[in-house]
């Protein structure tokens, strides 16, 4: 058998930003017709390396060869024209425009000889790409009316439509359901068969081992190793990524759930979303997981409890007393806290300091003489949070956007701890956080439960729910499909329930 050709070679690429060496002599070789996984913790330099390839950053040093020819793209346009396409981690889409406008953006087909964009051709071309990939979306739909997972598939279709030789997928599955992930993998296998080289960046080990042929691991901006996927196990990858052995993915449980029912939710029904008649109860010191597919009403359930969405019906009973939680403000004073799903969009104030981000929910506690904010008190509160949450930061005045995802999340946890809540609502608390930091977040969640707080946690990662929670509620089509004991349940059981009302 012939050796697959080396499609893309990146040699000793270096890149520095003021104060940090983001890439230090990193090399990567992608063979035609293979999937090459690129792994590493957040901040390891994976995205930076890809941005150097794609012309978004200019590399300081090193060489990049595409099919044996040296290249140095100055703009993403040039990269696209030369057959290098990328599905970006953050969905970069013109949401108010249609699907086809987004796909052909930057290269609209024109009517022959005229400076007029041909809508008809755009439509048929889009249809063709979608048919080939088995995507069932009307090209004329406005982007913002579609769920995130569909927008993600459109983004993938766009990258494919460039007929690129090298395709980079940067965390493509973070908002996809299992079924959609299968679909994506079919697309990737198709591209592989065509002889494309695929660079696949993900934090999800199961995926990496399933789809990739080779794995390159990076750590702190440096190249660690490249190995054939079949020779690797999950534990080996983690070991290479964090540079030490993580014996357990989840902290041990060393406490007992109490018997006291803290919160009873009855017939929760949302005004504007599909959430219908959800009832359950939550005990003191209990961690209840909420599983379900994207759009099954998991987030909506939390939002309705917290008062950040409009309720149509439903009763909340906190320690035997009915409460209303009409607004987040009211909920906070009732002892609720909520960590939102999209940290960057609705969690952090990115240009504000860690201190400002920490004290924002409990500002009243830092008033001197009930009149003005005391810097000293705020610094003390923030100090407590940094220590208690093990936040790694140079100082309190560091802007939160300079921290890694895991540390940002810890700041948000600290913010809520300062409001002294009884009930924590967590929506995908470990999304976009690397393996090492995930463990610390799990530890924080378990510590909360140990201290008698109750936690509700939405997650798309079933191993995480099974490893951290006591009990798991499974949502399906806006309804509560069932409840399982986390100690005994299996992923298959949960999946069956999740499909109940689809």
């Amino acid at each position, binding site marked *: 058998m012939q050796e697959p050709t080396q499609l893309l070679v990146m040699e000793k690429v270096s890149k520095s930003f003021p104060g940090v060496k983001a890439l230090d002599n990193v090399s990567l070789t992608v063979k035609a017709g293979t999937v090459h996984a690129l792994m590493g913790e957040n901040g390891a330099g994976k995205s930076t390396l890809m941005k150097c390839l794609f012309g978004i950053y200019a590399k300081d040093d090193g060489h990049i060869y595409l099919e044996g020819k040296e290249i140095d793209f100055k703009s993403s346009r040039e990269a696209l024209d030369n057959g290098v396409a990328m599905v*970006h981690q953050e969905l970069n889409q*013109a949401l108010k425009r249609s699907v086809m406008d987004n796909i052909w953006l*930057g290269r609209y087909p024109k009517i022959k000889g005229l400076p007029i964009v041909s809508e008809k051709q755009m439509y048929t071309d889009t249809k063709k790409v979608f048919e080939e990939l088995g995507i069932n979306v*009307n090209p004329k739909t406005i982007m913002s009316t579609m769920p995130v997972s569909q927008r993600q*598939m459109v983004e993938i279709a766009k990258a494919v439509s460039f007929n690129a030789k090298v395709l980079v997928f940067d965390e493509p599955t973070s908002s996809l359901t299992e079924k959609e992930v299968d679909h994506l993998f079919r697309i990737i296998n198709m591209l592989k068969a065509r002889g494309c080289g695929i660079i696949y960046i993900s934090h999800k080990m199961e995926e990496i081992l399933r789809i990739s042929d080779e794995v390159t691991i990076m750590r702190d901006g440096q190249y660690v190793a490249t190995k054939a996927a079949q020779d690797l196990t999950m534990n080996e990858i983690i070991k290479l990524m964090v540079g030490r052995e993580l014996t357990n993915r989840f902290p041990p449980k060393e406490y007992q759930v109490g018997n006291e029912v803290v919160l009873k939710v009855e017939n929760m029904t949302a005004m504007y979303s599909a959430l219908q008649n959800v009832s359950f109860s939550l005990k003191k010191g209990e961690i209840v997981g909420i599983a379900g597919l994207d759009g099954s009403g998991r987030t909506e359930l939390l939002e309705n409890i917290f008062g950040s969405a409009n309720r149509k019906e439903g009763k909340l009973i906190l320690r035997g007393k009915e409460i209303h939680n009409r607004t987040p403000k009211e909920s906070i004073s009732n002892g609720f806290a909520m960590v939102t799903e999209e940290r960057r969009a609705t969690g952090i104030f990115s240009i504000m300091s860690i201190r400002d981000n920490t004290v924002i929910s409990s500002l009243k506690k830092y008033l001197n003489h009930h009149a003005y904010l005391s810097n000293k008190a705020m610094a003390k509160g923030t100090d407590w949070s940094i220590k208690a949450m093990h936040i790694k930061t140079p100082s309190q005045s560091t802007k939160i956007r300079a921290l890694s995802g895991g540390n940002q999340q810890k700041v948000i946890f600290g913010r809520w701890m300062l409001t002294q809540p009884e009930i924590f609502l967590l929506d995908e608390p470990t999304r976009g956080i690397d393996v090492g930091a995930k463990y610390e977040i799990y530890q924080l969640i378990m510590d909360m439960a140990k201290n008698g707080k109750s936690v509700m946690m939405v997650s798309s990662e079933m191993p995480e729910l099974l490893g951290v929670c006591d009990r798991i509620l499974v949502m399906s089509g806006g309804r509560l499909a069932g409840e399982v004991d986390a100690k005994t349940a299996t992923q298959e059981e949960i999946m069956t329930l999740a499909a109940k009302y689809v």
Partner: protein
Amino acid sequence: MSELNNSAPKKGLAQKFDDFKALDARDKRSVIGNWLLDHAMIIIIVLLVIYIQIQRPAFLATASIVNIIQLTASRLPIALGIAGAIILTGTDLSAGRVVGLGAFVAAILLQKTGAVGRFFAVGDPWPVLIVILLVLAVGAIIGFINGFCVAKFKLHPFIVTLATQLITYGLYLTVSSAKQISSLDESYTTNLITAPMFKIGNTPVMMYVALAAIVTVIMWFIWNKTTFGKNMFAVGSNEEAARVSGVNVTAVIIGVFALAGVTYGYTGFVEAARMGASTGTIGLNYELDAIAACVIGGVSFVGGIGKISGVVIGVVLMQLIMSGMTFLGISGSITYVIKGAVILIACAIDMRKYLTKK
């Protein structure tokens, strides 16, 4: 892949009615409420027109309608230009003063030979075609500067155009010494811009109405049919997405502002002829009326959203209100209050569409 199919066939009226009947009382109320709010601007216009018509039967006479059309025609191009800047989530405060400068340039080059107090003591009026190209170029240059500063220095358009507004006005005052330029040549005024095209009843409709219609068609074409237009919407909707898709964002921003500048230059050319003179007040606050017309017409400050038809409706509505107020004998001072209220209501209704309901 998602099984959700977005290409559901359009529902017939009967089906829609059945769907409506199936809702409970509370949902019915919200459906009706939403419909009323979605069409609120149109409903307000219709009610307003009916009211004024009952109060002052002369309101819908031909003379008055032609007047409203002509006022609309004079203010439409500038609104179409500014709309582009708003679609890019920007704004353009320099518009009015560029109109003033354009009017001045046109007036000094097209004064009658031997007019008393002529700006250039000797000489003949220039050929009109050359003057119009020159005026458009003046507008384009200032627009180019606006766009260049916005795109290259990443300054907010509010700041950039505030600065160019002051600079433009200062230049105009320096060169003109704030003098009025009148006695304009017929080849420019009564034979061109204010030449009667045809009569509706006894009221002549002037040439610049047709010119405004042509400008509108050209702008519609640029917005909807060209790469540049589509790129403009994409940049306004998500600049970063446009950039990584290979759109030359800088060129698009500069192009939008330069195109806007051209519409201001054009408006200046028309205004001097309409007024029969160039004065310091030509163009004053035109940008504010134009921005108001855009937002009333649904060109949203969220960016990436707007239609030519919306801008036209916005301008017509503004003129209807102004003209209606005059008919009702409402004082100019109160007119400002009403204009302000209309802008607030229109924007609040517009914003509603972009709020995600939870």
